[in-house]
């Protein structure tokens, strides 16, 4: 005990505090170990990868080479970035529609009693169908051009935003509404000045989930029939047994998805800072 006290720079700390400090260091090291473990797992899984016939799981090096090759020898005259941008453009159009129409519709069926009773059963039936199940029907109706793809994304991410907006507006704190009526607010004022601000966090939750839903749906739509976009890269890789291309596509999708999630979170913090969880 004495020895430790004299030799250590943190000698003023008690036993428990030292233990705490050791644990903190351990918590810093563990993430590094786990990432290394994941990489070595990948290396292990790809040990009998044969690039000639494309059998087995591709190595990280092969994946990296494939990603670089995608820039020098583009697929369908487009490199990785351009494919990603095309997918992003599709969800951009769809989300622009959903955020305007979806929020308006959510307010309509969340706030007004009569439209709520009239539209809710229809909307709930629509919502019960998984987004991807619409794909065959929409391609049957509109073919496989650009518009049906955007429509698929609209169908796929509309429900999540409407549900959130509806929930937010139908659970406004009664006290806030009472304050409004004490101050003689008109119905319009009650909606715009009280109900909508107080459900902004629910609306933003809808924006977040609809963004990630849209990203997933555009991928599936592109995998089922397209000649551009990151989903197309994956299905192209699958068709030509080019597994490094599949992995490149997956990683690109993961990165873009993560960026989208971070961006919507940042937007939420900027627009409604009070929703940030207090620790």
């Amino acid at each position, binding site marked *: 005990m004495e020895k430790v006290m004299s030799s250590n720079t943190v000698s003023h700390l008690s036993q428990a505090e030292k233990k705490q400090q050791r644990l903190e260091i351990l918590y810093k090291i563990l*993430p590094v170990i*786990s990432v290394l473990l994941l990489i070595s797992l990948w290396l292990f899984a790809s040990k009998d990868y044969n690039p000639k016939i494309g059998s087995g799981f591709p190595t990280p090096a092969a994946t990296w080479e494939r990603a670089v090759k995608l820039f020098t020898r583009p697929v369908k005259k487009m490199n990785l970035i351009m494919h990603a941008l095309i997918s992003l453009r599709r969800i951009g159009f769809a989300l622009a529609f959903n955020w305007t129409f979806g929020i308006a519709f959510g307010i309509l069926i969340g706030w007004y009693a009569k439209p709520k*009773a*009239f539209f809710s059963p229809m909307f709930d039936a629509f919502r*019960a169908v998984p987004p991807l199940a619409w794909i*065959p029907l929409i391609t049957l109706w509109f073919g496989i051009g650009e518009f049906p793809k955007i429509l698929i994304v609209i169908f796929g991410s509309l429900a999540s935003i409407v549900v959130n907006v509806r929930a937010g507006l139908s659970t406004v704190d009664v006290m806030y509404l009472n304050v409004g009526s004490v101050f003689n607010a008109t119905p319009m004022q009650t909606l715009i000045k009280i109900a909508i601000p107080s459900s902004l966090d629910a609306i933003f939750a809808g924006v977040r989930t609809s963004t990630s839903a849209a990203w997933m749906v555009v991928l599936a739509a592109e995998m089922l029939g397209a000649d551009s976009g990151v989903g197309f890269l994956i299905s192209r890789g699958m068709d030509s047994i080019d597994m490094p291309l599949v992995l490149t596509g*997956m*990683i690109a999708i993961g990165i873009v998805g993560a960026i989208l999630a971070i961006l919507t979170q940042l937007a939420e913090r900027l627009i409604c800072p009070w929703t940030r969880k207090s620790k």
Partner: protein
Amino acid sequence: MSESPNVMTNEERVAYVQIKRKQTQFRDSMLAVSGIVFFFLLWEAIVLTGWVDSKKLCSVLEVFKLFILKFTDPNPDGAVLLVNVWSSLLIALSGFGLAIAIGIPLGWLMGWYKGFDAFMRPIFEIIRPIPPVSWIPLSIVWMGIGLKAKSFIVFFAAFVPCLINSYTGIRQTKEVLKNVGKTFGASNFTVFWKVGIPSSLTMTFAGIKVAIGNAWATLVAAEMLAASSGLGYMILMGRSYGRVDLVILGIVVIGVLGVLISAIITKFEDLLMGWKKL
């Protein structure tokens, strides 16, 4: 309505409010019914007037007829309806069950033990942003196009909400409750088991509900890309044969089954957590 509420006695006022409430309920259910009727009438009207091509939309009755016929007739996709339903349910429930069995305990452990969290979190955060659908090619390479590959994809879709919700649920355990446990001399594990887990159950069940929705939605994609039976396959076959009635029937059956499954889970939740109603 006409008389002012001031002159009513208390009993009259109660009766008045009750009548008023009944009237609102009646009005709302009438509106709900008329909404549905309006939808079907619009559908039939579009078909009857020939406003859209009959190859693109068929009447409600035709879908219903096909529904009856599909119980015995395997054409055109090669399986009767119940076989398709069974094969879809098998995939969805096996993947979903696996996700619950692995995801929820993992979330609890990560939420409670910091070391475990520090270890697992990076792996989880790397895998999470990759949508389950994009695992399809890899899982086909690994496991063929059988039940295993599809369950794996469904598992991925259901796993993430299970883990996230049980994780946040147990992180939100009230400090007071934990301290009570410690005061009575419970070990960390006992507090985890007897306090942490029960108090996280509400959130966990919310996660399970999200998970079953995801599982069911991903199933369709899995079956469209690689299958030889199942509801997603049936829809896809309807699409390639240009049979719009089959496509619509498939969509309706998937929707109804999805609603049924989540209703069963809600029932189960009520059974397990009777204290919530108090």
